């Protein structure tokens, strides 16, 4: 993984001191609330329902065991002993005291971490594929490019006061696991007809109250132009994006207003001026970034260990876990292991300090000390030998981390909702709980198979409800919490926005309605058809009829 040099370390160290001074000026009254707000937001600090919330950046989701131990330490020392992994591959602490935040940042800086640009109207953490570097369908590891973008975007002098926040995702595989189509810029590594690898560039995707799938403005961008092209996009956006209405300020609105083709032309015109300038990447810069993302030294006889198959045949619980929580690895005999942070009764994405420490230790023992945060709010140990899987599973089980539900109904994406967030209209965590209580039969869940439920407590869509196979949006109706369901969304290569099922339903009915939707699916599905495929084949009517007919 990327290792800071003196330059990187100087920047985070100086940032700690700068924020310490800003916090001091705020507490002493030199800075008003309004003046402090953008400063603290550019450091990921929100003032929330109960206390400040601090969002710490985890660039493209990659953590070392040492970093995860530091997060565990911070959760205990400054918070209530847990942290919340977010859909942006970051971690959030919900209870730090404002005056301790500079100390938290100082602790983070000792392990090459920070909270820079995790909020605010600036370029946010660049996200990527949780199986980057290990997936079989990968053309090239996207993370070196994420790191190049991270450095270029950090304290970018021109783009720190954009019309609105700006999110970039990079995917390097055939299967898009980075939801690149719903980002302000989505980059796909592709090869052209000459066999050269470059990027396809999408802009203007995004969720929120006006969801859009990204539009392609360039089929093939040579790697050396990565930064100049992004800078051109950002410059057009910074100059011409709307600033009069916060709900129309994202780049997706600009792209939609001027049109995909015209927007592309404006970008290309700007790019012509700068493409051969200082932003042009030399091969040695790309090679430098790549040098940090080499493969560990794998055991070349890992595949010879047969114990894995033997235990699977004799242990149903382990077998179920292996079926859902393993992802194929490019090296024979290895697997990427997904650790579920969606155990019943736990707020999706939450982990205690003790769990974090334990995962850090397990990653040292079994996975070269690497951990990856997924945008589905789970954690991945990317390189585990099959012969170690049973021991790992047992150790995870002790920590309530072995729920075998990855990709299943209970592997929900869920924002913090009304329980923590000051923007929310409705609770998300209580709905997750309700769903977990109703669907507690593992055999049923495995039978239903792949199903992505995504839930947001308000239209800002932090829970990505638009792209859930079943999306749940909390709304406020005269002071009561109601839930609007959508069907058929997807954030993968076949990206689509969900269709509205019908009138919002009462809080107590959410899990029951999901049950009714699944009844329809079970009745109509053909062979191995997943919920999403059945929905796309039969349309919304039978689902609608079954939910609303009886009412």
């Amino acid at each position, binding site marked *: 993984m990327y290792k800071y*040099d003196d*330059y990187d370390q*100087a*920047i985070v160290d*100086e*940032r700690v001191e*700068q924020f310490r*001074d*800003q916090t001091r000026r705020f507490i002493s009254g*030199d800075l008003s609330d309004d*003046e402090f707000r*953008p*400063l603290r937001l550019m450091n990921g600090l929100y003032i929330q329902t109960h206390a400040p919330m601090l969002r710490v950046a985890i660039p493209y989701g990659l953590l070392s065991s040492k970093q995860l131990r530091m997060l565990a330490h911070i959760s205990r020392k400054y918070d209530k002993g847990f942290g919340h992994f977010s859909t942006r591959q970051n971690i959030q602490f919900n209870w730090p005291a404002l005056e301790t935040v500079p100390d938290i940042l100082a602790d983070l800086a000792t392990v090459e971490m920070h909270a820079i640009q995790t909020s605010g*109207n600036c370029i946010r953490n660049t996200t990527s594929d949780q199986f980057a570097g290990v997936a079989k369908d990968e053309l090239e590891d996207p993370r070196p490019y994420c790191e190049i973008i991270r*450095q*270029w975007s*950090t*304290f*970018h*002098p*021109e*783009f*720190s*006061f*954009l*019309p609105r926040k700006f999110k970039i995702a990079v995917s390097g595989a055939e299967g898009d696991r980075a939801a690149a189509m719903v980002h302000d810029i989505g980059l796909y590594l592709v090869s052209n007809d000459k066999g050269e690898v470059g990027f396809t560039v999408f802009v203007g995707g995004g969720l929120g109250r006006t969801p859009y799938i990204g539009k392609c403005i360039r089929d093939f961008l040579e790697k050396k132009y990565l930064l100049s092209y992004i800078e051109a996009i950002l*410059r057009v956006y*910074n*100059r011409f994006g709307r*600033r009069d209405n916060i709900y129309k300020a994202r780049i997706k609105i600009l792209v939609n207003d001027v049109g995909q083709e015209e927007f592309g032309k404006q970008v290309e015109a700007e790019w012509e*001026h700068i493409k051969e300038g*200082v*932003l042009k*990447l*030399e091969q*040695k*810069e790309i*090679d*430098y970034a790549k040098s940090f993302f080499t493969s560990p030294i794998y055991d070349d006889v890992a595949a010879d260990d047969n114990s894995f198959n033997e235990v699977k045949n004799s242990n149903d619980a382990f077998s179920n876990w292996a079926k859902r929580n393993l992802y194929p690895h490019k090296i024979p005999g290895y697997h990427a292991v997904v650790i579920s942070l969606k155990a019943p009764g736990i707020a999706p994405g939450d982990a205690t300090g003790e769990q974090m420490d334990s995962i850090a230790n397990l990653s040292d023992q079994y996975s070269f000390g690497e951990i990856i945060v997924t945008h589905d709010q789970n954690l991945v140990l990317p390189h585990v030998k099959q012969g170690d899987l049973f021991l790992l599973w047992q150790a995870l089980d002790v920590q309530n981390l072995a729920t075998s539900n990855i990709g299943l109904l209970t592997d929900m994406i869920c924002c913090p909702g009304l329980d923590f967030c000051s923007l929310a209209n409705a609770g998300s965590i209580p709905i997750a709980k309700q769903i977990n209580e109703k669907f507690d039969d593992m055999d049923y869940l495995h039978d239903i198979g792949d199903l992505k439920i995504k839930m947001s407590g308000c239209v800002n869509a932090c829970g990505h409800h638009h792209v859930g196979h079943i999306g749940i949006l909390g709304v406020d109706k005269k002071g009561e919490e109601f839930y609007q369901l959508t069907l058929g969304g997807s954030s993968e290569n076949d990206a689509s926005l969900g269709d509205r099922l019908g009138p919002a339903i009462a809080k107590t009915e959410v899990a029951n309605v999901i049950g009714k939707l699944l009844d329809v699916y079970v009745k109509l599905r053909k062979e191995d058809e997943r919920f999403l495929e059945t929905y796309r084949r039969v349309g919304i009517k039978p689902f609608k009829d079954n939910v609303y007919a009886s009412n």
Partner: protein
Amino acid sequence: MRVIKDRSIIDDDWSLIRNIESSAPIPEGDVILPFVFWQTNRDQLLKTKKSHAIWIDGSIETESLLDDIDSFSIIALDFPIFKDGRSYSHARLLRERYNYKGELRAVGDVLQDQLFFMERCGIDSFQIRDDKDIEQALNGLKGFSVRYQAAADDTIPISERRKFK
């Protein structure tokens, strides 16, 4: 009035006029005029004045200044509210693309914690918001000892400095 110029606090007599009818008589003295007014009265102004100072708000396209760019000794860039970042792009374009060598002055909601970014974009003078302590605001220029990007103030990107040792 005091402004920060080239990292020092100086006394300055330029006064900024934001609103003026295009048909109004040309104001006397050292005034920074709205670009639209300046354009309307261009010929007369070029005849009568030696030094020209204009003010542009974020919606003026930088390209529209090009014909007369050599006439200006001050271009004031507006920050009506600190969150409005359009003038950062204007500044870089004026410096880096159009090679403007005169003074670029930030006016409006200009605060300590934005100065670092402004200076990096090529702004060299700052009219700090009235109610703020200008001496303290100077600290905002200390910023960071290291920068990842090349910009108007620094054309060497970090990749060159690193030399991939």
